[in-house]
């Protein structure tokens, strides 16, 4: 009776599917990250302690208010009275919309109040005042 010699077991991990795995990872990261869409106006945000995170970047729309009272949405300047039209359209497209107001800390309240009124007219009622984190002392 002939004994066949045991073949040596290869202990190598197959690397041929490695590119596929990494490409999968790459595609996953590309799909899940939302890139910053607009550069906005240069503002220095105020600071606050009791802050909350915005739920989702996909349901957020930004309004920038500079210290000179300029209002910018999607990198276009708007008059106060035109804010309601664009926000109304956004609100109609996304009922979960949250407006993130990025206003400069030395902006005047008359501009902020004007934006409030426009948002109320556009029925975009979820508002978030974008702030930096203040360390409680």
């Amino acid at each position, binding site marked *: 009776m002939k004994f066949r010699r045991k073949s040596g077991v290869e202990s190598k991990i197959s*690397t*041929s599917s*490695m*590119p596929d795995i*990494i*490409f999968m*990872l*790459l595609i996953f*990261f*590309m799909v899940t*990250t939302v*890139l*910053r869409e607009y550069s906005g106006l240069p503002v220095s945000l*105020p*600071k*606050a*302690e*009791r*802050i*909350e*995170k*915005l739920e989702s*970047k996909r349901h*957020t729309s930004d309004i920038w*208010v500079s210290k000179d009272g300029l209002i910018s949405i999607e990198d276009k300047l708007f008059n106060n009275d035109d804010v309601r039209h664009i926000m109304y359209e956004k609100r109609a497209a996304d009922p979960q919309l*949250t407006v*993130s*107001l990025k*206003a*400069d*800390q*030395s*902006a*005047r*309240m*008359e501009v*902020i*109040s004007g934006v*409030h*009124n426009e*948002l*109320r*007219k556009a*029925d975009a*009622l*979820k*508002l*978030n*005042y*974008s*702030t*930096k*984190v*203040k360390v409680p002392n």
Partner: protein
Amino acid sequence: MAIRERKARTGAIPEGGMADIAFLLLVFFLVTTTIDMDKGLGIILPAEGQELEINKKNILNCLISSSGAVLLGGEPVELKDLSRRVQEELRENDKLIVSVKAHEKAQYDVYIEVLDQLKLAKATRISIAETE
């Protein structure tokens, strides 16, 4: 002179380096994407034409002047005392609505500070009055 025989060419693309290329792409995308989560003070604005009549006893007026001074119920308060004072008022009357009213020339950061203090005092009923 010996003529060397040409090597037989194979049409296969070497796939050994494929993993490295994909890794490089992955690292590039990881490095270039900045995850900046937006944070801030959340508030729900009242809907248009939804003004309610509220008993005057349940309203606490908080006024912000153009110079940044804060008046709570007619008395001037320091910003850092605001949350404590509102907490005291809330203890007496839990139906209290804090109405924040800012002068149109007031600065935004004072307003944010006031809202922050009100949130610190756990005042859930905050009303934003129009500027005068």
